[in-house]
């Protein structure tokens, strides 16, 4: 039995949103609830629980396509894919340890709504690049769909991209179609020990600028590497490069990379299992999950400036960092401050070009400090008009991204 606030079908969902539109209150949208503490806190009258809108609808491995209801647990999807030797190429992260929630509950809708992608982002794209189509109910209480179930599709505006990363502020997705990809035959990771940040970025840039098809590139400074499975014996910094594919190909590329990177320092290799553990840590920011009080930021910048930005911020306010995406993603953990150092951090990011998102801080702080990077006036107004186009009465996740959205 579903109560009004845990709809089981898209029609139920439409009815309950219409009821809200009629002036009866507003909603915080949750599926697994694992990312409720990501973004600004929502102070809505009701929580809309999508948990019952769940289940894989279509999975055609040779068509590389899967459709599932929005609240289908990621674990269910990943298991189905695994059985066919496939996976979600964007490497959806599991931030449950980081945010202190239950890992089994993460859903497809949640990961898409937050547009989360892991280390393979640099090669395979973000979550948004893998959404082919969806059905949703807008904040106007209307059911609509966009996209389709094929990869090549330019019919109408690409609303799938807009849904990804809208944090449930525009419409509630009920059904999502994603692209899936074959799992590689093997994975290997090349490590370089003992580099400082700027040199590590140089090494990663050299690797990513070579034809060796590196699928992930991260740098863990010594104080972060210490918490990792790859902890170098002497507790030194580790720079890691991942190769995936056919065994013959991985071997060839590994040899080639080793030749070209030999000048940077001491090289090592991780086998498939160690490699998987390391990239899971990087993906989930596990080294930062261990110290529960720290405030955590995620900065997206031009890859070449990652280490500089991190070092500049470190010099000003302290804290620890590590780099993913070849330097383009800076994970930052700082001792808690009432302002989460947002001015200092954003100033450094603005100078380099990019954006900074506050991933973990107390509810009070996330209510006061802009969690998402402030936009120029023209862009902020445009985003507000886009919100109006989907949810003019502000019944869906009001305040999640910005107080006025």
């Amino acid at each position: 039995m579903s109560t009004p606030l845990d709809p089981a079908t898209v029609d139920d969902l439409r009815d309950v949103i219409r009821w809200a539109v009629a002036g009866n209150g507003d909603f915080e949208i949750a599926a697994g609830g694992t990312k409720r503490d990501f973004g600004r806190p929502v102070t809505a009258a009701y929580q809309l629980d999508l948990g019952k809108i769940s289940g894989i609808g279509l999975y055609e491995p040779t068509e590389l396509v899967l459709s599932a209801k929005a609240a289908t647990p990621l674990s269910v999807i990943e298991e189905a894919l695994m059985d066919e030797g496939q996976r979600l190429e964007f490497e959806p992260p599991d931030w449950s340890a980081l945010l202190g929630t239950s890992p089994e509950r993460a859903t497809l809708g949640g990961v898409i709504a937050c547009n989360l992608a892991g280390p393979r982002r640099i090669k395979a794209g973000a979550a948004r690049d893998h959404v082919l189509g969806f059905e949703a109910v807008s904040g106007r209480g209307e059911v609509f769909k966009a996209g389709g179930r094929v990869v090549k599709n330019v019919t109408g505006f690409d609303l799938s991209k807009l849904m990804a990363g809208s944090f449930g502020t525009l419409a509630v997705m009920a059904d999502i179609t994603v692209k899936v990809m074959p799992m590689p035959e093997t994975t290997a990771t090349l490590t370089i020990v003992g580099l400082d940040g700027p040199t590590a970025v140089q090494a990663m840039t050299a690797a990513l600028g070579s034809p060796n098809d590196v699928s992930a590139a991260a740098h863990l400074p010594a104080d972060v590497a210490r918490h990792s499975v790859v902890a170098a014996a002497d507790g030194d910094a580790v720079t890691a490069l991942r190769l995936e594919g056919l065994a013959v190909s991985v071997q060839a590329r590994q040899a080639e990379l080793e030749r070209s990177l030999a000048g940077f320092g001491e090289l090592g290799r991780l086998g498939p299992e160690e490699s998987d553990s390391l990239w899971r840590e990087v993906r989930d920011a596990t080294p930062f999950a261990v110290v529960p009080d720290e405030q955590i930021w995620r900065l997206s910048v031009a890859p070449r400036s990652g280490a500089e930005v991190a070092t500049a911020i470190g010099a000003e306010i302290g804290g620890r960092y590590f780099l993913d995406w070849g330097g383009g993603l800076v994970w930052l953990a700082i001792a808690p401050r009432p302002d989460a150092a947002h001015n200092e951090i954003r100033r450094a990011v603005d100078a380099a070009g990019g954006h900074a998102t506050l991933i973990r801080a107390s509810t009070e702080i996330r209510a006061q400090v802009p969690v998402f990077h402030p936009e120029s006036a023209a862009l902020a107004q445009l985003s507000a008009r886009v919100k109006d186009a989907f949810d003019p009465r502000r019944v869906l996740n009001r305040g999640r991204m910005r107080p006025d959205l």
Partner: protein
Amino acid sequence: MKMPVPDAGVLARRAEIAAELQRILPPDAMGRRVIVETTELAPYESDGLTAYRQPPMIVVLPETAAEVGCVLRFCRDAGVKVVPRGAGTSLSGGALPLADGVLVAMGRFNRILDIDLHNRCVVAQPGVTNLAITESVRGRGFYYAPDPSSQIACTIGGNVAENSGGVHCLKYGLTTNNVLGVEMVLMSGEIVRLGGKHLDAGGLDLLGVVTGSEGLLGVITEVTVRILTKQATAQALLIGFPTLESAGSCVAAIIGAGIIPGGMEMMDKPATQAAEDFVHAGYPADAAALLIVELDGPAPEVTALVERVGRLATEVGATSIRASRDEAERLRFWAGRKAAFPAVGRISPDYYCMDGTIPRHRLPLVLGRIAEMSGRYGLRVANVFHAGDGNLHPLILYDANAAGELDKAEAFGSEILKLCVEVGGVLTGEHGVGVEKRDLMGVMFNDEDLNQQQRLKCAFDPDGLLNPGKVYPILHRCAELGRVHVHRGQTRFPDLPRF
């Protein structure tokens, strides 16, 4: 096909509007930047979909974002429609001018602004051609992946507006997966930047919807694209099949085996023959279907995959398999495919290129039905197909000078596209809706779907002045679309407990 009725008031003010535009865009060393003469407007009267022609009221040639901003703000205030134009190669009439509209030609935005190999990106003005971006980094081991067949001519701005594809999309993505940022001017004249050299937008992913928006949301004045490193080696296989079904099974077998080729293209017999007669690529004359499979990567990988794909092809009954022995031969294999459109142009006075996408496994059914339609309409058809991603390009052969043939070709084309939707596919895979498929949008979307898309347009262009008459069959006023329908008397959920 009907376009919005020209606004008589605007047409009456044409001279006045031109004078104001001349003040914004004074002539310079390269000549006039506001074109009003009938003879000079003629070259702009159509895009790649030449069946439709309409000279614009005025053409302007701005060269900075600030100038575009002034033009758009003036047009907004004066209630004048605007159509952006890149190279005019659109195959769906997206750049078709309006009789009462200003055509903003982006040809002067022709500079590459920044080649940043460390950050693996290129920043270019929108009028730079697709190929020029690849050329600018080729010597350094990089390239820009999306490669539409029109790449020597089409512009990167047009590519972003159409979300263009190419033969390498299956592995390397469409334009949307390769654009990092844009600078764009809104109808209000405001300039906004979306994305940059970093990954992902900070707020709502407006970059994602602007890409593929067919010039309906804003005028793009700068584009940042990611560039990829060139693979060490590439080898192509030319595989002949006795039936379309066996070629289809081969495609499914390759993907089922976890292989994502760099390119996988299929041609039917008429397309193969036309291409072979034109470029002598060495295509097998007897095959009912020809598959070109390109494998790229480090040499040992390519060797292993060529062997595997060859084996899979044999298992499903391929009648001939050839692997390219050197770069020249690989390029020759591709030459026929790349010249398929002009090759078909040689065997027919005119051809009409369709662009639906279908789930791959429906290919035999769809091609069977197309053959049946071909008989019914009495028009020949040649099929070229991005087999890897299910994107079909049936080329309908007709003669525009024969009475009624264009109408017949269009009816045939609509029937093909409806069939694509019926089997779970879409109306257009890469060429865009434009004016061509506008009136078919209802086949794929219902009113609520289309209204929601148009509401998004209202957020960017509340007066509906940017490229109207394209993509959406019925234009609603934004005020009407914005109205919220409150379903009162909704008593199903009384007094739920609040937080």
